[in-house]
């Protein structure tokens, strides 16, 4: 028997849908976010009746979304995009429009996995470093370090980009 008094799943879904979608657009891009969103909440629903704590449902569902995002990135490495599509995506203005989120998340997605994961969870999902550490199964210190490394790389990349005319 579950000991937690959980809200009806529909209300849980309605409460967290914006946060989950924002996080997924940041971490996998708008194109793959729809599927990952549905997979996230379907997985959450399967696990829901067995949940024993209702103390951090937001952190819980974002951790599931994080795992779905990793699946998307792994699938991409197994099935790389055709060259033409890659060119289109790398093109700054086109991707900014297509993703509606601006260029910076495109750059975050190109970072090494751990840095990408920490930055999307910190700034795309607004999780604390403590929550990120438990989502990633690492120490809080390691999460902070990966975030700092990621931001440093982004800063260097931006310095190298010529100003748009």
């Amino acid at each position, binding site marked *: 028997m*579950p000991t937690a*008094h*959980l*809200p*009806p*799943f*529909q*209300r849980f*879904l*309605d409460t967290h*849908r*914006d946060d*989950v*979608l*924002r*996080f997924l*657009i*940041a971490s996998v891009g*708008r194109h793959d976010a*729809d599927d990952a*969103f*549905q997979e996230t*909440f*379907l997985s959450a*629903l*399967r696990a*829901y*009746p067995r949940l024993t704590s209702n103390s951090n449902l937001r952190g819980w569902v974002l951790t599931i979304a994080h795992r779905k995002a990793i699946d998307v990135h792994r699938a991409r490495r197994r099935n790389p995009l055709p060259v033409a599509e890659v060119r289109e995506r790398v093109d700054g203005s086109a991707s900014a429009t297509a*993703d*509606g*989120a*601006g260029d*910076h*998340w495109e750059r*975050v997605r190109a970072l090494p996995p751990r840095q990408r994961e920490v*930055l999307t969870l910190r*700034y*795309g*999902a*607004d999780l604390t470093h403590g929550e990120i550490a438990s989502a990633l199964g690492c120490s809080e210190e390691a999460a902070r370090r990966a975030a700092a490394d990621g*931001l440093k790389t*982004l*800063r260097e990349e*931006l310095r190298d980009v010529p100003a748009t005319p």
Partner: protein
Amino acid sequence: MSLPPPDLVPGEAAALAARTSARAADEGLAQIVYARVDSPVGQLVAVSTPRGLARIAYELENGGLDSILDDVALKLSPSIIEAPARLDDVRRELEEYFEGRRQNFDLALDWSLTTGFRRRVLQQCARIPFGATSTYKEMAIAAGSPRAFRAAGGALGSNPIPIVVPCHRVLATGGGLGGYTGGLDRKRKLLSIEAPTLFA
């Protein structure tokens, strides 16, 4: 440096959530589904389980959607999603009933929101035919506890499936209307649908 989160297009997360709920219902992942149903006696909330219709609530009188679903979550399961398509039968039969085209409901019922004596009383009540009425006393007798007519009234007042389980057909022994879970105006309205000459 700052990394502002992505902007959402207004309504896109809500639309995606609705698609997710529909898919969850199609794949049978939710144990409990609900829908809001319009009716001439006000907004209703209908809740079904795999066994059948478990709850019809008068949205306003029963504390609003959140409170109605919280109660179901606590008593049955929190795996509750909104899935209007899964309640098409309920919606259609209620519509036919309110339009005077249906006298009996052909819906499977899930009695799990009521137990013991209360359930026995309600199951007896479910046998009162369209257009007829009974009394709290007769209900107590039918449920095997002739002296428990007050408790029978309590059982009918706790009816989780009003309208379909016709507790509105049970009147006070002296001929008065008695009480009703959705208020006496609704009781009168339902009775006038069924026996216009008596309760118009």
